[in-house]
């Protein structure tokens, strides 16, 4: 009897323990992330209409293709695709058995309903090259093009091309993305308060994870809360006190502090930014290409990387992020620090060393204007560049503007040099910043060159396939480099900080960073 009782007690306690363990597990499978500060305040999860989208959006909506950090494209909701040799037709074979969160099936009709909904929105240019969408069968869709668009896969991989459930999208109108957002993604939107937080619940039916994640679904974490915190010191303190588990986009200044905490980890990966110095080619003395070249060669990328960024990140030697194939230009054309050549070029251009080490020509000193926007980073960059220009006898005077005002000032064409950066992972950024159609801003260099325009046109609209596009953009990029219309400076990193006691990251994440597809593999420590 006693024995029996004891046994019963034992089983009871084991049951209790299992119960306790399972409830603990349920509680633990929740995580809180903090959005990058530049994504704070996104007002809607409508990928079709929204001009701004945040880190939670790719978890709610899947796209046809996904792009890896090495910029290669991989199948997702499209299993495969074929492009006609003349670029005028694309056929996409869709994955079977995919369902939207509300039970609607994902099929060719969903695509046919989705593409036309871009008309009239700010994102319309993404599908502008598509003339019409033809439904071949349930799982095959054909895009008939107005013109070849080798950039189509890039657009399809963008977060703005996450696919919404067609019926819900139509029925909800402007409420879509505000009260509810329905896609096929690994997480469902449960609540959303603008500027505050977004709560996501796991989609338990999800089995169509892309090949970029080991786990094809469902995701491991049950509930993710994305918080929006604009002040970076505040979000760091939240991480430190365990209020949140992960910060996207930790500023370089904070990395040392995060590393000093034993329970925090940092993952640093190349970002999509390039810091550079545009040179206004219409302003004396920069109308002379020799002065431009000298100015560009005076910028010491290594010194800036070491002194301002503590060696974190990469030097930039041309206009594009290193991961893009178009960045792989003829090495001779890359712009690197070369003070001897810079001095020699200025001598040749007639600027002779004068009093106080500042060069002179016809009695006029080599004084130039150097602009920057208010952020601390740009101020420091401007000071570093100022010192480096001084070394070749150029006296640069720094003026600081606020980030919106500076664009209006550029349009007045009163500027000469400026330090700034952009964030983009496609070669068409060269068109954005150097096309003769957009002088002032974004074309701060005020560069309008007939050959440049010709190469631009060829790269932007004259390419039929991706290979052709890469070759054309490379030629355009090389020409831009040869004209010294800017000086490349720095390629920053993006850093994610997380609580090691709470989250278990994979080796892939340590290498590639925590991309949306990687969140499938992210686990809460038991």
């Amino acid at each position: 009897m006693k024995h029996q009782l004891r046994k019963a007690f034992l089983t009871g306690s084991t049951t209790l323990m299992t119960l306790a363990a399972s409830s603990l597990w349920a509680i633990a499978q929740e995580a809180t992330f903090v959005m990058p500060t530049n994504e704070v305040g996104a007002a809607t999860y409508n990928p079709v209409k929204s001009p701004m989208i945040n880190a939670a959006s790719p978890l709610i909506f899947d796209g046809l293709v996904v792009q890896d950090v090495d910029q290669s494209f991989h199948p997702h909701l499209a299993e495969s695709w074929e492009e006609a040799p003349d670029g005028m037709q694309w056929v996409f074979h869709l994955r079977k058995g995919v369902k939207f969160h509300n039970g609607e099936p994902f099929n060719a009709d969903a695509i046919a309903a989705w593409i036309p909904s871009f008309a009239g929105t700010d994102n319309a240019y993404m599908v502008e090259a598509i003339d019409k969408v033809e439904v071949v069968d349930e799982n095959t869709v054909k895009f008939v093009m107005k013109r070849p668009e080798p950039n189509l896969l890039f657009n399809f991989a963008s977060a703005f091309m996450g696919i919404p459930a067609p019926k819900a999208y139509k029925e909800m109108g402007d409420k879509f993305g505000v009260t509810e957002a329905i896609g096929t993604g690994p997480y469902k939107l449960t609540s959303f308060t603008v500027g505050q937080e977004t709560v996501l619940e796991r989609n338990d039916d999800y089995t169509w994870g892309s090949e970029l994640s080991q786990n094809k679904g469902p995701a491991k974490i049950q509930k993710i809360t994305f918080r929006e915190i604009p002040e970076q010191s505040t979000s760091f303190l939240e991480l430190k006190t365990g209020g949140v588990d992960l910060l996207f986009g930790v500023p370089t200044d904070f990395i040392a502090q995060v590393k000093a905490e034993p329970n925090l980890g940092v993952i640093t990966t190349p970002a999509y930014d390039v810091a550079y110095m545009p040179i206004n080619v219409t302003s004396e003395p920069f109308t002379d290409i020799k002065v431009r070249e000298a100015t560009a060669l005076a910028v010491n990328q290594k010194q800036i990387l070491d002194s301002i960024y503590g060696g974190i990140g990469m030097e930039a030697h041309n206009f594009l992020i290193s991961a893009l194939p178009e960045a792989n230009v003829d090495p001779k054309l890359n712009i690197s620090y070369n003070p001897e050549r810079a001095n020699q070029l200025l001598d040749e251009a007639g600027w002779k060393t004068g009093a106080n080490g500042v060069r002179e020509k016809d009695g006029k000193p080599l004084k130039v204007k150097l602009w920057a926007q208010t952020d601390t980073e740009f101020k420091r960059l401007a000071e570093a560049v100022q010192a480096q220009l001084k070394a070749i006898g150029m006296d640069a005077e720094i003026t600081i503007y606020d980030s919106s005002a500076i664009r209006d000032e550029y349009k007045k064409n009163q500027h000469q040099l400026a330090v700034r950066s952009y964030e983009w992972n496609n070669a068409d950024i060269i068109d954005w910043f150097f096309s003769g159609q957009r002088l002032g801003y974004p074309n701060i260099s005020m560069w309008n060159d007939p050959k440049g325009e010709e190469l631009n046109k060829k790269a932007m609209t004259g390419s039929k396939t991706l290979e052709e596009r890469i070759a054309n953009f490379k030629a355009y990029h090389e020409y831009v480099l040869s004209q010294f219309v800017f000086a490349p400076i720095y390629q920053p990193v993006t850093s994610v900080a997380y609580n090691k006691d709470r989250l278990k990251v994979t080796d892939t994440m340590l290498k590639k960073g925590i991309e949306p597809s990687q969140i499938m593999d992210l686990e809460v420590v038991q």
Partner: protein
Amino acid sequence: MLSYTIRRLLLLIPVFLVVSIVIFLIIHLVPGDPIDNLVRVGSTPEQKAEITARYGLDRPLVEQYLIWLSQLAQGDLGTAIVMRRPVADLIAQNLPYSLTLGGLALLFSTVLGIAAGVIAAMNKEGRIDRTVMTGVLFGSTMPSFWLGLILILVFAVQLRWFPVSGARSWESLVLPVLTIGLGGMALVARVTRIAMLETAGKDFVLLLHAKGLPARRIQLRHVLRHALLPVVTILGLRIGWVLGGAVTVEYVFARPGLGMLLIKALSQHDYPVVQACLLMLAMAVMLGTLLGDLIQAAMDPRVRSALT
């Protein structure tokens, strides 16, 4: 009293018009425009012109102002250019947070400010008076942005009593309310103390003492009642201040509210949102002042009789 109220309300209309013009001009004359925040890499100059036209930003300023004003008269605050939502919705979503925070902070500074002022006045020139007044001086000179971070460090990071940021529970209200309330408390305490000391020198107080009333009773029943008049005026002014002053505090504590909305909209040059937020803050100041005057009139028969 009623005619006075109506007259004061009517007087608000010209003030409102002037304020609206100033707000409109400030935001439109500052360099930079919202369209630059909308166009993305790859869109053409024609597309940009189209968007500009869609929001009427290509029209003359006077025309834009008149359109805005006529819509405003019909209760339409417009649609946010960058955030893409009716401005009224955005305000409605954020205002409750600001009102809760502002209201509690005002309550905190009123109650504690008056209490501190009374204590200081009753112990005039004594050790307690000096201590309270030093503390008050300290509280009124600290910038709220910095005070907020210090409070987070002490109470959230070291002691872990309250969450660092957010607006999810009542605990998350404590630190922001303290941050805003301390500054207001300092002001109220100083005004209360001075008003009480001034009133204490009046003839009727001397009479009360002569009648043999206990000193404590004279202070709390009679002196304080008179001394509260300037305090009410100050509090009326603070109503508007509390909403506006919460801007940096909301930012530090990552709390939604009018201030957060304003900062975000300012950086994007989202004209309709900035205009609406500034207008709300200006209205709060105007109505707060009015309320202060009305309460004062209700409390003080002398003010009332001067009105008629």
